[in-house]
């Protein structure tokens, strides 16, 4: 058995870099990454069978329930190679699989020399995996193509081996075949990691340089910083220094994850582990920064990462206005763990006090919202997501618009909107319908490649706003669920955009304003007015619902005045019942929002605002 008892395995701070292999797993959601990781934990003996639980490394409830990984992790696995019989240390750095978290993926990649490209051999490669594969190749990582789920009856390893080999540039027979579920082929994979992935290189005698690839807030221990040591050595009780800020920290604990944290005598060249300094704010231990020692600081930082830039914005409001301070505290806490989350207070006439929040993408938005509701017990309403616009007014003044209500009311010279390069993978049957969708969404075709006889990669340039609006849902339904999407921001382009306002009884409902392409303004107006007519209960007066561009009305619906809201009978036995009903309605009243004189139930806002987010959550939920 090639597993080595932990105590006898090479120890941290005393492991020759030659014995170390740092790798990550690139895979799409549901392609079995966490199951394979679980299997590796078992086979290498770091987790005993009786302590095993599914998706061992996914710690957040949301991660486990949705079957996705949000935060990366690093686990130290001892392994005795079945090929040369020598002992090795494998550091498995877990990576998120979703497009929103490309940023986190790139962090993980920078800490590795190799990557396992894991593909479900019943489904083939997905667009996001492809994007991450390209990212890994750009980082000069050694790629080990692996076909997973070979135990499935629908498995087509031959077909997908050809596809993978084309992408990676190897022979189909070089693709390993494993089953995370049964464990079949996993030992061979571990051996191949040792054989194919180069050991880390670094100078043990140079000043210490370690790259921060993750920084996580833990209630008990404060910020836990994950690092990969490149040169030199970090030791316990040593003063460390952050290169970018020069701030010095006491090192309270240093160790490795295996897969629970274990303190160590330090970390040497090529090793991956954690640092605890007692700081409470992840921003003081910034991802991408270089850690060095105070007494012998380095002069050259490692190349870090770009700060993640929020791409999608949405207003988050507590349904119960009293929960506003709780929402603020909750966002503060989440930000400790999620440097990509930005927010600032915002007031909506319709929704009250809340925050305008910036996210990496739609999934990120969904997850933040879900964590706020679940971990902080808040009930929230969120506005339709939008992107950031740069609007130049007639006099040349530029306005950054992250909320449609900030859109200048006067004449506008030009509007710049973010655009992305989108990659769509799909069976060839759906090329026509995908192209039609992308054309509708103002896309420009950049090219198309056949991955295999019946699978195609289609590349488009699209405005991000079009993707944010229901694109993924459309793609899934048009491709019967087979299409997959990845996108990356590539800059800005001028767009013929207008702001459409929705008015209830002449009052603009800021939460429903949207910036859309001029040609889409009318359909948007009709869609919203029709929807609201269904959702808003009849009032004691007629309520016109209008969609307008500036002062110009483009669509209109009417909610007729209510005619009857009274119970005909009220005698002795009815009085208590009636009063109790009234008391119950007092509760319901809290959930009503007033727009001018119009009473709008929260449910109407939620229903009118929910479509896009729902589509997005459908994509990750299994």
């Amino acid at each position, binding site marked *: 058995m090639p597993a080595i008892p932990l105590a006898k395995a090479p120890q941290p701070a005393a492991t020759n870099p030659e014995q170390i292999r740092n790798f990550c797993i690139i895979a799409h959601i549901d392609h079995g990454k966490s199951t394979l990781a679980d299997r590796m934990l078992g086979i290498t003996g770091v987790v005993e069978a009786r302590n095993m639980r599914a998706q061992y490394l996914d710690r957040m409830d949301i991660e486990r329930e949705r079957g996705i990984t949000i935060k990366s992790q690093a686990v130290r696995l001892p392994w005795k190679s079945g090929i040369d019989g020598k002992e090795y240390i494998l550091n498995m750095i877990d990576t998120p699989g979703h497009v929103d978290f490309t940023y986190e993926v790139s962090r993980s990649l920078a800490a590795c020399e190799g990557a396992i490209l894991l593909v479900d051999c019943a489904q083939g490669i997905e667009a996001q995996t492809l994007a991450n594969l390209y990212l890994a190749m750009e980082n000069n990582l050694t790629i080990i193509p692996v076909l997973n789920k070979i135990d499935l009856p629908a498995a087509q390893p031959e077909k997908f081996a050809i596809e993978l080999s084309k992408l990676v540039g190897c022979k189909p027979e070089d693709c390993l075949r494993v089953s995370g579920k049964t464990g079949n082929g996993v030992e061979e994979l571990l051996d191949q990691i040792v054989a194919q992935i180069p050991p880390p290189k670094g100078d043990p005698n140079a000043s210490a340089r370690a790259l921060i690839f993750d920084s996580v807030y833990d209630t008990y221990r404060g910020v836990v910083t994950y690092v990969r040591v490149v040169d030199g050595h970090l030791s316990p009780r040593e003063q460390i220094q952050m290169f970018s800020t020069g701030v010095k920290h006491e090192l309270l604990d240093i160790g490795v994850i295996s897969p629970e944290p274990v303190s160590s005598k330090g970390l040497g060249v090529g090793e991956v582990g954690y640092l605890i300094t007692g700081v409470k704010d992840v921003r003081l231990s910034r991802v991408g920064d270089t850690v060095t020692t105070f007494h012998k600081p380095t002069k050259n930082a490692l190349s870090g990462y770009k700060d993640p830039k929020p791409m999608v914005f949405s207003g988050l409001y507590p349904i119960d206005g009293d929960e506003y301070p709780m929402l603020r505290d909750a966002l503060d806490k989440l930000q400790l763990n999620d440097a990509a989350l930005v927010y600032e207070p915002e007031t909506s006439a319709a929704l009250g006090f809340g925050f305008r929040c910036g996210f990496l993408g739609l999934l990120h938005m969904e997850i933040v919202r879900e964590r706020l509701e679940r971990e902080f017990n808040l009930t929230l309403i969120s506005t339709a997501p939008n992107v950031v616009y740069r609007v130049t007014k007639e006099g040349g003044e530029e306005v950054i618009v992250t909320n449609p209500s900030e859109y200048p009311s006067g004449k506008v010279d030009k509007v710049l909107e973010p655009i992305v390069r989108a990659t769509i993978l799909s069976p060839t049957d759906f090329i026509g319908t995908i192209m039609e969708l992308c054309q509708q969404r103002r896309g420009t075709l950049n090219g198309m490649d056949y991955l295999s006889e019946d699978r195609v990669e289609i590349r488009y340039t699209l405005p991000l706003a079009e993707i944010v609006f229901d694109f993924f849902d459309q793609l899934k339904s048009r491709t019967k669920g087979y299409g997959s999407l990845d996108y990356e921001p590539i800059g800005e382009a001028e767009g013929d955009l207008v702001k459409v306002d929705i008015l209830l009884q002449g009052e603009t409902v800021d939460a429903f304003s949207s910036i859309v392409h001029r040609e889409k303004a009318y359909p948007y107006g009709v869609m919203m007015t029709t929807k609201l007519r269904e959702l808003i209960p009849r009032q*004691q*007066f007629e309520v016109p619902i209008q969609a307008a561009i500036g002062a110009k009305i483009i669509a209109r619906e009417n909610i*007729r005045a*209510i*005619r*009857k*809201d*009274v*119970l*005909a*009978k*009220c*005698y*002795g*036995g009815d*009085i*208590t019942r*009636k*009063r109790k009903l*009234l*008391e119950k*309605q*007092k509760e319901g*009243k809290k959930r009503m929002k007033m727009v001018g*004189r119009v009473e709008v139930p929260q449910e109407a806002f939620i229903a009118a605002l929910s479509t896009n987010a729902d589509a997005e959550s459908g994509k990750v939920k299994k």
Partner: protein
Amino acid sequence: MPRVERSRSNVSPRLSFYVHIPYCVKRCGYCDFNTYTPAELQGPDLAAVSANYIDAVIQEIEMASSSVGNAEVPTIFFGGGTPSLMPSADLARVISAIREKFELANDAEITIEVNPDSVSEQFLAHMREAGANRISMGMQSAAPHVLETLDRTHKPVNVARAVEQARKNGYEHVSVDLIYGTPGESFADWKTSVESALALPIDHISAYALIVERGTKLAAQVARGELVMPSDDETAEKYLYADESFEAAGFTWYELSNWSKPGGECRHNIAYWDGSFWWGAGPGAHSYFGSERWWNIKHPKSYQERIAKNESPIQEKENLTPENKADEFILLQIRRREGILHSQMSSSQISLAEKFVSSGDLDRESWAQNKLVLSKNGRLIADRIVRELVL
């Protein structure tokens, strides 16, 4: 028995009596009242059922007496169920018991609800002798197919006959109940019902929009799609038509579902709305005295068992807080033509009500005289206005 507050003054409190008769020949599909058919009660015959039941009611009246002490009784109302199903002698015993235990006012209003089919001239004559002076008749509709949907068994012609008989026997006040908005009722059907009612020698009309109560046969039929409830707009039109017709015939609305000729108002029902005290005797009946409201156990059998053991038949009791009372004041008083004085409203309620003045839901003239009174259209949305004012 409830320990209720006794009036501190030497003047006796006033206490109205509601006497529940929980029996019907047949249960109507829309009705959620606490009624039972003789078959359901497996009684040997109605006369015996009645005698035993009335014994229990009289015992509860005695309990009321020891609980409240002396009180003046301005009104008695026999409701149900179908009081006219009972032998008149039994109902007369109840009146005697109240007269014996309390001070029955000289001008007391004593109402009997009757079914046009089951009421006999003899019954009417006997009850008149016993002191009853007001008849309330369940007419519901003049359209046979509407009555059928409602499961009513009476023949429309019997209504006129029964009203005539009541008049002949010296009943000062006769009222009919109408129901509108029954599935399948056309506007013409409703017109016929309204006209038929107005052709009768009556001085009071109650007209109710049909309510689909949970758990009724009607609710199940609607849920299954066998019956389709009319739109609110249609029902509202029927209300406005009825109001107009009644007013034209000399009836004035005094509560949003009740119209009367001058002096024909039902004083018993007004007692429910103006915060007076009332004692409901019989299973499921509600009572209000002091700051307490309570209601009796629902099933006649358990009710009688409790009484037989000299135990209180009360199922549950609530103590009304000042806030409860304030809410009830608004929700009841707003239904009345009398309306609510500005001096009885908080300043925020007055300003909340302003918008209903401008929307035409409150009567402008009354408002100018510092009084909140619903307009015709306002009556149709009374519950909504209440919500605005008290929430």
